[in-house]
């Protein structure tokens, strides 16, 4: 034993699980890659430009804010993840400055004005997306058809198309799929929606690959299964009960599959609503929050003036998180109602 042996002194526990903040962030990034690869394949090389711009803008903002606050936070991977999610939430034809502004807003305003990672109370990527959506709605609605769809009429996303054209529609239709077919919208089957052969944001169209990534995160216990399951579950239930009424079909006739695989539901429920910082900390809280997300998504998508409801639903529920946390504190051990000693 050498005399100059240097021993670390620390409070117990003396061992630590392999988990770390950076590992969590990078694993989420990796699990998002398949859906992004599909987006690039479907919408062409311009999507790479959009993704690169939003990631670079996010990382650069993080770096500059780090200089201001004298913290070095690039290695934790959270800025890359935010930038990537913002890119995923952009249509491929979006003007580049919009993508950049979304990232800058997300990092500088939403994340750092409250102190950086861990202290923001709203999901930065979603707040960035919503900010540019309301500021540059036109630019944010430049949809393009995936290149594998034969008749490349650049139009709207299935949900947008549905919402716009239902208002002036006077005929009869049995449901959204029938309606789209009747209007010559190039979607043949649920498979097109599930695989992602539809117009939409770069990272949101492939429900299949998002599900694979999400399940991967649930298995690794990085995502709590409660949030996606109760979010998607409550939304599906409400859609099934009330979703058919717009087509004059009465209760319990909504087209669940159509609504699950369109818009940003999969991306939102699996990767955005599950953001640790802006979701509740107890299981009970997570369930309440997820059901709230499901309910609001349903409300906005079916009765609001926007085709989509996911982003707004999640950031609205983000606002309630402190309240939910307060109401769902864990029950401490030894506080059970007194039981009889003899049972």
């Amino acid at each position: 034993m050498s005399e100059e042996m240097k021993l670390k002194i620390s409070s117990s526990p003396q061992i630590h699980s392999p988990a770390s903040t950076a590992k969590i962030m990078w694993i989420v990034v990796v699990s998002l890659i398949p859906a992004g690869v599909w987006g690039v394949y479907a919408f062409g090389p311009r999507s790479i430009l959009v993704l690169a711009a939003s990631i670079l803008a996010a990382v650069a903002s993080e770096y500059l804010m780090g200089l201001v606050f004298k913290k070095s936070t690039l290695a934790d991977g959270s800025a890359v993840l935010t930038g990537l999610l913002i890119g995923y939430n952009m249509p491929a034809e979006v003007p580049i400055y919009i993508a950049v502004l979304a990232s800058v807003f997300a990092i500088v305003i939403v994340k750092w004005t409250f102190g950086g990672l861990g202290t923001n109370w709203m999901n930065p990527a979603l707040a960035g997306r919503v900010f540019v959506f309301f500021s540059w709605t036109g630019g944010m609605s430049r949809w393009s058809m995936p290149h594998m769809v034969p008749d490349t009429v650049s139009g709207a996303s299935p949900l947008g198309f549905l919402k716009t054209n239902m208002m002036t529609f006077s005929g009869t239709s049995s449901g959204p799929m029938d309606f789209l077919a009747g209007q010559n919208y190039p979607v043949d089957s649920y498979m097109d929606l599930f695989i992602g052969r539809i117009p939409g944001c770069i990272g949101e169209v492939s429900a299949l690959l998002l599900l694979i990534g999400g399940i991967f995160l649930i298995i690794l216990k990085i995502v709590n299964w409660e949030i996606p399951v109760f979010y998607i579950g409550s939304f599906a239930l409400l859609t099934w009960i009330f979703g058919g009424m717009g087509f004059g079909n009465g209760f319990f006739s909504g087209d669940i599959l159509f609504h699950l695989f369109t818009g940003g539901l999969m991306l939102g429920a699996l990767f955005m609503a599950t953001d640790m910082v802006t979701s509740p900390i107890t299981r009970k809280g997570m369930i309440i929050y997820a059901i709230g997300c499901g309910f609001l998504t349903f409300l906005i998508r079916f009765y609001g003036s926007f085709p989509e409801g996911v982003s707004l639903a999640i950031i609205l529920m983000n606002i309630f998180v402190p309240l939910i946390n307060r109401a769902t504190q864990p029950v401490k051990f030894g506080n059970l109602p007194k039981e009889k000693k003899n049972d």
Partner: protein
Amino acid sequence: MKGLKTFSRGGIHPHGRKNLTNKKEIVTADIPETLIVPMAQHLGAPAEVVVAAGDEIKEGMLIGKPAGFISAAVHSPVSGTVKEITDVYLANGMKSSAVVIEKEEGFIPAEKTKSDSWKSKTPQELIEIVKDSGVVGLGGATFPANVKYMVPKGEKAEYLIINAVECEPYLSADHRLMLEKASELIEGLRIISKMVEPEKVAIGIEINKPDAIEIMRKQAEAENFDLEVVPLKLKYPQGDEKQLIKAVTGREVPSGGLPIAVGCVVSNVGTVNAVYEAVALGKPLYERTVSVTGLGVKNPGNFLTRVGTPISSLLEACGGIIDNPAKVVVGGPMMGFSIYDLDTPVTKGTSGILILTDEESGSGSRTACLSCGRCVSVCPMGLNPTKMFKFVDHDDYDSAMQNNLMDCKECGCCAYACPANIPLVQGMRLGKKMARKKKVS
């Protein structure tokens, strides 16, 4: 495995690494020339030194008498001369007075023979013997055993639960004890049963020790002792008294209460052996089994060690350690203390000595709290560690207390699981200390 009992809330599954030592038989460690025997080896008031420098003493002689109701006697582990009375720092960072003993030349430990004379003694007399032998809980809390076995008037012990969970990773001293001393343990259980008079005796063993479950079952049957062996699912901190009671009986000890409030007395399996030795062999507690292990030790093993043995001397018995260990830990890795002085003595509560490498101790960098909720979901006490920590961090000890800070028992699940590497347990300790200080002033 389904159907196995366990506690309901929280818990973690840290890497066990018990295979480093659980096949190693208990070996009697060499007794060093000089032993340092601290007076504060137990919970409660430190013992009072009753010898002086220059005194000739014999193995097993009283050298420290209990200094209060919650206190314990300390005995000399060897025959020899008192070199000096001095102050030493214990593994937990506390200062304690200690008797430094020079072992006499050619010292040979006395052979102890088993006697059945205890069978004619009253429970009260047995408790006195336990007290005079300085027996304390060997699971880690080192609570004086005689106090524990004295069931208060008006209370009834339905269950005597023996804690053989050994849920701390790495350690296997209790495991080996069951494999090697099953018969003595059953005798010890008879003695404790006479003191506590329980309706039922149960022993909780996690299923990573199937051989111990088997052997305890067989031994109890062979000796016609009514013992319920309860195999438990693997989960840390099941060896905590409250979690063990919950796992075995389904009852929750009320916050701030003692196990007897739900009709239970819990004792560690090592303590059962100590009681057996004290009562049936007439041997006070000055020797215990210590697991010396970790990837930094060349030959890990289990050692029957005399109290007062410097850790450095035990490490030599293991063929030494690697050149650059990250941490030397006294106790288990979840609740043990890291030390800087290898001459720190082994005490009654030393269940293990770990030499950890960087790879084992896992040294990540701290980031901001992500509110991921892992600390909440692993907390076995149903607390909100991150919230309490934030209050402590802002010096708001009152709010931390209102959030049940005192119910935290520093098991370490939260800090172990925290991806942001926040020293949650350290915060809880600080908070409790500051809150107590405030209360006093």
